[in-house]
């Protein structure tokens, strides 16, 4: 056993320095030089302020904005640190709902969300991603259907013609990579930024 200790100890430390310090630090330097924007988190600045990351969804609650998917993230309860309270799109504590297919709580949540969405846009079937929580709780995207579903509401709230808002959505649909990989989607934050930039006619 003792004659094993020296190689074990030396390799543990030396490989630790190589893989645990030199490698990540060199990568940090190199990534920062080659891809500075991505390495810092794909942040979006407006008027000198950071308004979010292109990759991270945020909670939109008002009628004026396109709303992302339900988010199951939570935060520590300010009143009692031992407990948590719902805090949608908390990008410091990613999480899904982890509710299973026979969960009564999930069925109840989906039932309530469906009713609200149907009231908002009667007569259209509600896209599935609009009433299901994402895995990370930070999903930045909506399916094109789920974004288009919200067009009448947003147009109403902003007093814009529906066609204009619909065109805006359609211009921002990202397709599959080379027609094969991934799913078509719309980045909600980018869409809402573009919406804010729309001039009234």
């Amino acid at each position, binding site marked *: 056993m003792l004659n094993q200790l020296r190689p074990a100890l030396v390799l543990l430390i030396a490989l630790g320095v190589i893989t645990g310090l030199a490698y990540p630090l060199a990568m940090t330097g190199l990534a920062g030089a080659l891809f500075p924007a991505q390495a810092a988190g794909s*942040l979006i600045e407006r008027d000198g302020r950071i308004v979010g990351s292109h990759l991270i969804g945020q909670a939109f609650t008002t009628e004026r904005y396109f709303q992302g998917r339900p988010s199951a993230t939570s935060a520590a309860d300010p009143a009692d640190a031992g407990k948590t309270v719902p805090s949608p799109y908390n990008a410091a504590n990613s999480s899904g709902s982890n509710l299973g297919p026979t969960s009564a709580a999930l069925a109840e949540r989906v039932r309530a969300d469906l009713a609200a969405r149907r009231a908002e846009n009667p007569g259209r079937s509600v896209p599935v991603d609009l009433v299901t929580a994402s895995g990370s709780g930070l999903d930045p995207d909506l399916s094109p259907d789920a974004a288009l579903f919200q067009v009448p509401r947003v147009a109403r709230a902003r007093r814009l013609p529906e066609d204009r808002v619909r065109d805006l959505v359609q211009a921002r649909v990202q397709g599959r990579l080379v027609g094969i990989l991934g799913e078509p989607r719309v980045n909600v934050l980018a869409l809402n930024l573009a919406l804010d930039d729309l001039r009234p006619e």
Partner: protein
Amino acid sequence: MTLNGWIQIALFCAVVVALARPLGGYMTRVFAGKHTLLSPALGPIERGLYRAAGIDARQEQHWLAYGLSMLTFHVLGFLALYALLRIQAALPLNPDGQTAVAPDLAFNTAASFVTNTNWQSYGGETTLSYLTQMLGLTHQNFLSAATGIALAVGLVRGFSRASSRTIGSFWVDLTRTTLYVLLPLCIVYTLFLVSQGIPQTLGAAVEATTLEGAKQTLAVGPVASQVAIKMLGTNGGGFFNANAAHPFENPTALANFVQMVSIFALGAAMTNVFGRMVGDERQGWAILAAMAVLFLAGTAIVYGAESAGSPVLNGLGLTGGNMEGKEVRFGILASALFATITTAASCGAVNAMHDSFTALGGMVPLINMQLGEIIVGGVGAGLYGILVFVIVTIFVAGLMVGRTPEYLGKKIEGREVKMAMLAILCLPLMMLGFTALATVVAAGLAGPANAGPHGFSEILYAFTSAAANNGSAFGGLTANTAFYNTTLGLGMLFGRFFVIVPALAIAGSLAAKKTVPASAGTFPTDSGLFVGLLVGVILIVGGLTFFPALALGPIVEHLAGGLGQTFPSGG
């Protein structure tokens, strides 16, 4: 299910198979100590390491010494990681001010990373400092992956050598795997991941003001460098709590595809290494073919189940499959495919929440792990895992014709079969034993977030994942408690080392045997018949063991859900 979905699956399989041969060729040269393209750059570092460590690179080890070196190395690694977790608050590179990790969580996390499990009782962005992520987790990601590969190479030497006392040097295999295989791949891979949008920074979390004026704290960090090895090394431990579902760990469809390929790349290449080392590449392809049969069957079931969606939610008027716990950019297919891959290998990274999968969609990942993760499997671990099943298969085939079984010119005798069964039996003992315990004690029953059969599935999944060294979870289970941290930690350690030691014993006993020439009565092990028999043995020996437990969890949930029954939490 859509045509596009199947095209994505076919493309994935094609890329993995296409990479197996070139990677396998390169790795075979590395393990043989031959000159490679990178030798001029890495050779001096390698020799420097040996000098400092007092290792004679030509000195090979008996299987017992090889195993002892491996164990010593792990004990030290475990202690170092545990210490780091406990004192991280006093160390640099902690911009978000993370505090010391509690003792039970530190034990669990140390066991988790040393055994290549990477079970997450911790939530990365809320618990760990950047130094811990790098020097603790990234470091162990390399070492546990390199260890798995080293052990597989040791076992293969058992098959490829005749009348030999030794099976190679653990120190040399470990060093060469880390320096020549893992590190160069990770450097290129990290830069690709950053280009896709994965952060790589030492800066603290970013404060943003959202369009509606709310505050949003964006956790960042040196993520890409860890994700690269987490995937290539089939470790799977996330930088963030949501793992590869987090947009910062898996930002695009392309990043997701490459991550899926990288989970399988080295494991699939190891089958080619095996073929090359025993002097007949067809033997490696036969094993990969058996893996492919099981993989495609599992993928089809998960994809079908998730596309069909949950009967309960469909009853409310939802269409379009099960999107709870999935990300829009991946959709149903890339989530179902990722789940099958990550549990077929011992990766355990997740890009969708398995807990929210349909009953049958969540059962396949469970079965993949319960079979011992031999469908490509963990880097190295998958190969030695399936070779154990190969030995049992050969034994069964021998019984059928009443002939002493042999494989690649080695007679398979009582000792090998006993050791193989020991390795196979260890997993159900850990998985089912601990699950049984957790379902009768209060501390165990406090864990599940879901009620009814799904709650049972959460417990079963946790111990299955731990003992199989996978690390994925039905995440609703509150696992960061003294009971679960301790029992899961023990499950991981037993699940790793009680498979490794018998596998090494097989390696030693095979290496010592003479090679007998193939005769007319030798069962050809590169044939379709062999592949079919191997698949059958895996399903019967591995699968039947778990059928009763699966019946209590996912199967009964599937039936209940079909009738529209739901279970209130806490009831």
